[in-house]
């Protein structure tokens, strides 16, 4: 285990940024979001929850897939057709496709909380499933994840019910686990990639004889708090693989969705939401095809020329939570598509969220059991 003083964190960032692109929580205009760190940026690993999750590291909000350029074909070489037709084909163009660049340099994602690290596993099941999404894969192969324990979990956190351990990032699928205890950061590589990163920047670390005991103390401290969180005992009974029939037609949906505005806040701050849209943007020198996040809460998400299959906000609302708590587990051996980060709990404009949905169904069961 290695260690560095909290006052020296900037030199750690500099050391990492010297060899890699460093993607980490940065504070700008009062909010902390992930971004590529450069000298002078205010790295912020004290804030527990960045507004957006770190999923941008692997699945950015907007990315270019390819570019299509039109190449002019002069009329005389177009074909051997007659003059009129040749004139007609004068406007014809040939399409050339240039695929977007894949990531080919290692980069470091620093300060990811254990819940967000779990979210990467959730996304892996989608993007790395056959057929593999090569843009995502290139980022996964080159991303080195440095996870950070959650010093003081907040009331909106409920990661423990999904088996995430906020106290011990070394259990997460990360490359390095770190703990911020008091004025020191403790650093423990847990994978080959992590070892390689550590070796490259080892000169910034100092000796810390008491590292193990300090980290053990911290773990116990966090575990104790995690137990006290209001949603620590939230039950997922009735959710999971194969529960479609039980949940889909329930009357409860009608009660819980009413306030939903149909905005995309919950989906855009969520670390596991991976639905996307593919769009074209016409520029002077070609058409850029890009992929951007989309939200199943938007009214035009499934809109087709002939109508759509999820016409009401109730259906769209249900889709989001059924996807997270039933459909995804059905397709992925029971793994939930929620990691309990609590961002939606904090950010929903109307204070609706996944916890309320789970609780509403639990209450409904009590009611029906009484009858």
């Amino acid at each position, binding site marked *: 285990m290695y260690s560095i003083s909290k006052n020296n964190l900037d030199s750690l960032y500099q050391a990492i940024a010297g060899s890699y692109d460093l993607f980490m929580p940065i504070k700008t205009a009062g909010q902390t979001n992930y971004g590529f760190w450069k000298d002078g940026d205010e790295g912020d690993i004290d804030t527990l929850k960045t507004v957006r999750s770190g999923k941008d590291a692997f699945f950015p909000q907007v990315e270019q897939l390819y570019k299509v350029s039109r190449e002019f074909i002069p009329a005389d070489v177009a074909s051997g057709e007659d003059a009129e037709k040749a004139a007609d084909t004068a406007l014809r163009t040939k399409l050339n496709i240039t695929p977007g660049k894949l990531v080919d340099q290692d980069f470091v994602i620093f300060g990811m909380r254990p819940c967000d690290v779990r979210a990467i596993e959730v996304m892996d099941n989608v993007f790395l499933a056959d057929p593999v999404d090569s843009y995502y894969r290139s980022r996964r192969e080159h991303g080195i994840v440095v996870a950070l324990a959650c010093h003081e979990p907040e009331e909106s956190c409920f990661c423990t019910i999904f088996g995430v351990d906020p106290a011990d990032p070394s259990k997460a699928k990360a490359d390095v686990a770190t703990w911020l205890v008091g004025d020191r950061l403790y650093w423990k590589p847990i994978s080959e990639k992590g070892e390689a990163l550590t070796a490259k920047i080892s000169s910034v670390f100092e000796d810390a004889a008491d590292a193990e005991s300090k980290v053990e103390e911290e773990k116990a401290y966090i575990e104790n708090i995690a137990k006290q969180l209001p949603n620590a005992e939230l039950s997922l009974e009735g959710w999971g693989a194969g529960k479609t029939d039980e949940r889909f037609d329930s009357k409860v949906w009608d009660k819980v969705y009413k306030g939903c505005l149909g905005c995309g806040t919950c989906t855009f701050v969520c670390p596991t939401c991976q639905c996307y849209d593919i769009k074209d*943007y016409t*520029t*002077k*020198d070609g058409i*850029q095809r890009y992929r951007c996040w989309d939200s199943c809460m938007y009214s035009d998400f499934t809109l087709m020329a002939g109508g759509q299959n999820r016409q009401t906000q109730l259906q769209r609302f249900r889709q989001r939570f059924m996807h997270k708590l039933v459909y995804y587990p059905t397709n992925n051996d029971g793994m939930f598509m929620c990691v309990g980060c609590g961002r939606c709990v904090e950010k929903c404009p109307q204070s609706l969220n996944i916890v309320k949905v789970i609780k509403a169904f639990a209450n409904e069961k009590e009611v029906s059991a009484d009858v």
Partner: protein
Amino acid sequence: MSMNEEKKEYRPLIVAFCCNWCSYAGADLAGSSRLSYPADVKIIRVPCSGRVNPMFILRAFERGADGVIICGCHPGDCHYSTGNYYARRRMALLFSMLEYIGVENGRTRVEWCSAAEGAKFSKTMNEFCEKIQSLGENVRLGDLRCKN
């Protein structure tokens, strides 16, 4: 464009929204009177200055325009009676907003120009072009994707 190529002299791209009844005819008159105005001005004919949606202006900038000018009938002379009065309020607010977010003053302009004022049209466009030329390329309102 290759980097070795000599940097061409900067010519601004100017979009002019001209009302069909006055300014567009004014532009016509300028042409038939052989009064010149810069070729950098691209005219878009609109039925009335009141048709100019603020979005048109922002979109023009986004897609690479360096200056946008709206020309309509003189207040009181609107073909549809009141269109330019509404346009006047809208543009006053929009221009003030653009200034507020830090866009250089002078990239936008409204000019009232009748069908008989070919000379005024030509003069206005020459002036406006010079102004934009001095302001240089529009960076703040452009879309980076259009610039590579």
